[in-house]
């Protein structure tokens, strides 16, 4: 277990040393969402209806934006070899790296989204629902995107390829995440959507680390 904690601590420390990387991602999220009211126009009813979908899409793009460096940095400086050689399972290393990624992107996105939601005229209970769905949904985005990052390791134009691979895989999370917030207006059961979102996250935790480890071993060859 100490190896996993060490890896997370190392990654968080590296991110802390370069706060610009995270700031750019969060700034992208803010700018991208703020563009929508400007493009659509100041119709409060319309904005409030589409807000959840827009914020969820922007959160998805923002988390993918930062994922291409998840394994690439380790691959380029040779520390990936040290991870492959560590005397504990690589699956846990992949999980630890995604967890560190979630702490610095998914978590701040979930906190930022309700604040931006105010600008869209979302009612208070929707804001809370939005934060909850993002809290449960963003780990899936980090893990799925992590797999795409591992698969595109060493490829040219890996950033675009990563998005192309990860976006379709993130569709269920997007549907149920944005859908859960919508239920508050349509009167459907919020808990059902949330349960499906949580189930998707659990499936990702249970499967993605193995797939990532296999992709990383392949990249190490």
């Amino acid at each position, binding site marked *: 277990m100490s190896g996993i904690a060490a890896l997370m601590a190392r990654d968080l420390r590296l991110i802390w*040393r370069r706060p610009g990387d995270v700031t750019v991602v969060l700034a992208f999220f803010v700018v991208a969402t703020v563009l929508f009211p400007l493009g659509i126009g100041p119709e409060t009813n319309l904005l409030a209806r589409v807000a959840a979908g827009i914020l969820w899409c922007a959160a998805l793009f923002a988390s993918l934006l930062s994922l291409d460096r998840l394994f690439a940095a380790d691959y*380029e400086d040779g520390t990936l070899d040290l991870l492959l050689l560590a005397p*504990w399972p690589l699956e846990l290393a992949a999980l630890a790296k995604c967890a560190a990624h979630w702490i610095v992107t998914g978590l701040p996105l979930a906190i930022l989204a309700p604040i931006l939601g105010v600008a869209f005229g979302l009612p208070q209970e929707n804001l809370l629902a939005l934060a909850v769905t993002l809290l449960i949904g963003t780990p899936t985005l980090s893990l799925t995107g992590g797999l795409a990052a591992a698969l595109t390791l060493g490829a040219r134009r890996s950033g675009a390829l990563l998005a192309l691979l990860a976006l379709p895989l993130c569709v269920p999370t997007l549907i149920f995440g944005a859908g859960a917030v919508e239920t508050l207006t349509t009167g459907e059961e919020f808990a059902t959507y949330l349960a499906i979102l949580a189930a998707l996250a659990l499936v990702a935790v249970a499967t993605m680390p193995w797939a990532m480890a296999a992709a990383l071993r392949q990249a190490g060859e």
Partner: protein
Amino acid sequence: MTPPLLDIADLACRRGGRKVFDRLSFAVGAGELLVLVGRNGSGKTTLLRALALLVRPEAGTIRWQGRDIQIDPETWRAGIAWLGHLDGLKGDLSVRENLLAAERLRGLRPPEDRIDGALVAFDLTALAARPVRALSAGQRRRTALARVLLSQAPVWLLDEPLNALDSAAQDAFRIALSHHLVAGGLVIAATHADLGLPTARRLELGAAP
């Protein structure tokens, strides 16, 4: 006579559809240094990566203390220190933090005085707090070698360890190497340069076509 610690039998590896080596058999015992020589592309790095289980060999077995390393790869991994052609250092961490982080990744917590010892061995004490990205190539290599020394692993797998090192650093490396061998360690190194140890055994890998 005791059996060799590391026993390689009929090892074959393929890279990009081409067989780099085939039916390679050798054994390395405690306190032995095996130098891999051969032209560019003769498979020195591939052999080292196969020994570290980073590359899956096509055929053959690698035995450590009589056991196939595929059966219990984690015990084998815990016993090797790796120096690839990349240094394996994080530019944003200091020299000392890099050494500490590498050991922690192996699940160990080295005491401060051992880190100091590894820093002294490669004359890095004055650079300990400096971020690695501000170091020269030779200083980075010295840091990577200090990481190998710190690991206290019995098996060192080194790919071109003398790369970018000045003569003082090369001497420091030779001293660390001899100490490791005297202590019963085992070293396999791929190099074009002369490591300067008369006891070294050489393994010539086939020339590239």
